[in-house]
């Protein structure tokens, strides 16, 4: 297990390096002169030359990448051209909000597991068909639109939840209320997917001999379902949860914009619109790195879920 963990960790390094190369290249090979963009339309030729020299834009691309990587390793992500603030400090302020959004949405997503188990215990019943058809709708609903619908119904019409933003401190009634709608918005798609996957996994497993044996020896149904059957359907579910975490991080970009949450995703979008490339680069690298690391954890969790898995 230790060797496998180390090997997976080493394998993640080239992918992480690739992520930095890609992020760097996407923004540096873009059409247009970054120095001109930073200087603005009124900048003189001398000012543009100065910007180019200060940001090392006159150096070869590989040198620029090397500098970028070296700074990245020293947690130096550069400075925002819009706000004259370091990218790192901007991310530090916003990261906790994005983390809260990701964790609360993941909790909503996890509700898909009991729903899937419920549907599988009564296959083709009215509740099963209802649940599966509703989950199909859940997969197809655009999350930004769901967010707007929830705001219209629960904030504008009923006044139950705030329209926008997180209320700090979060561990108060107002704080918790402000987390509900964004979490439902971002977690619903994943919940629907997990419910469908858990149901089909459970249906496969419930016909197996060991489940019949567990029932024959008189175990309560709850123990049969959750201790014997569910555990064996968890590997594909955990895989999807890991992959879904990426969708969740991407979705955070949208949800933060809908609910005006001051997070990393919204920062990325605002920076793109303002052409503040250092901030875009920093946000993208942060989100993509988190995604790679979460997938690594998912891989490592397989062995814990199913000890029969042997890693060569």
């Amino acid at each position, binding site marked *: 297990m230790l060797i496998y963990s180390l090997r997976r960790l080493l394998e993640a390094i*080239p*992918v*992480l390096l*690739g*992520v930095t*190369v*890609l*992020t760097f290249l*996407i*923004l540096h*090979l*873009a*059409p*247009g002169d970054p120095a001109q963009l930073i200087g603005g339309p009124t900048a003189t030729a001398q000012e543009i030359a100065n910007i180019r020299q200060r940001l090392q834009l006159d150096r070869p691309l590989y040198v620029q990448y090397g500098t970028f990587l070296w700074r990245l390793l020293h947690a130096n992500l550069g400075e925002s051209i819009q706000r004259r603030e370091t990218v790192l400090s901007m991310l530090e302020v916003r990261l906790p909000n994005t983390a809260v959004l990701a964790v609360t949405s993941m909790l909503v997503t996890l509700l898909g597991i009991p729903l899937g188990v419920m549907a599988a215990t009564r296959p083709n019943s009215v509740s099963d068909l209802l649940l599966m058809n509703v989950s*199909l*709708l859940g*997969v*197809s*609903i*655009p999350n*930004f*639109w769901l967010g*707007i*619908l929830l*705001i*219209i119904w629960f904030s*504008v019409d009923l006044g139950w939840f705030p329209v926008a933003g997180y209320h700090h401190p979060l561990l108060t009634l107002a704080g918790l209320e402000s987390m509900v709608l964004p979490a439902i918005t971002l977690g619903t798609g994943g919940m629907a997917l997990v419910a469908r996957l858990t149901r*089909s996994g459970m249906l496969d497993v419930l016909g197996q001999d060991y489940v019949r044996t567990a029932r024959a020896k008189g175990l309560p149904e709850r123990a049969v379902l959750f201790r014997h059957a569910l555990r064996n359907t968890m590997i594909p579910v955990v895989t999807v949860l890991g992959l879904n975490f*990426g*969708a969740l*991080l*991407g*979705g955070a*970009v*949208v949800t933060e*914009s809908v609910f005006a949450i001051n997070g990393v995703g919204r920062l*990325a*979008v605002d920076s*793109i*619109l303002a052409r503040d*490339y250092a901030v*875009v680069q920093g946000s*993208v690298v942060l*989100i*993509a790195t988190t*995604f*790679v690391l979460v*997938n690594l954890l998912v891989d490592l969790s397989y062995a814990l879920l199913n000890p029969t898995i042997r890693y060569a």
Partner: protein
Amino acid sequence: MSTAATTVEARPRSGSKVVARLKRSPHFLVGAVLALIVVVAALAAPLLSPADPYYQDYAAVLQPPGTPGHLLGTDAFGRDQLSRMLYGARISLAVGISSVALGLLVGVVFGMLAGYYRRLDRPIMMINDILIAFPGILLAISIVAALGTSLLNVIVAVAIFSIPTFARITRGAVLGVREADFVASAHALGSADPRILLRTILPNILSPVIVYASLRLATSILTAATLSFLGLGAQPPSPEWGAMINQARTYLYSAPYLSVEPGVAIFITVLAFNLLGDSLRDALDPRSR
């Protein structure tokens, strides 16, 4: 593994069996009807629209749905909402289809090269893994950030975001047939590699690719709408559905229908292609249900 299995499974299954399965699937029927409505709306937009989607009537701003002459109401500029939504169907379908086609073309080429030539497998799949390491929408956003905000760039961004999965599915399918007898026969007959790839292998790996393309159409339409909603895609006054919802956010209190209506259109379109893709996959490979 599963994609390879799908290919091998798909070959002996006759077309009529697949059609029979599709006919029995209620999801397919619902998906086909919904997709037909969207396609007809897009094609017949000039005939069905009661007004020019860009015509601003300042005497009739924010008219609610059901107003005579404006079945779905008007927006803040007095533009007819129904006409804008019908024209929006054209944009969504065009963006969805062209981005999937571009992603499929590039993804299948790279997937075939990786699956067929062992020495190309590792470098291509490494680039693929890096692309997959980006949460999809984030990759699309980064590409739009580099290329600039426009509908054309959204097509390119959504296509690039589709390439890794098309490449992965194609590679898996090619690996499944690369050592098959009919490929060995083609080699023995002296066929050149491009001919083997295009004439012998490609027809045998198409079914998982087509199934994925139909599912991808839903995701692509959704991603494009999301980018426009964020202000990174179609720009006002374009009647693109995501952009319409973005502009309608200011009127959540006074005219919530402006946000609801284009959202319903996106939802129905995405649902239609999800249902079609799901039922097509089930019909070609019943074990995947």
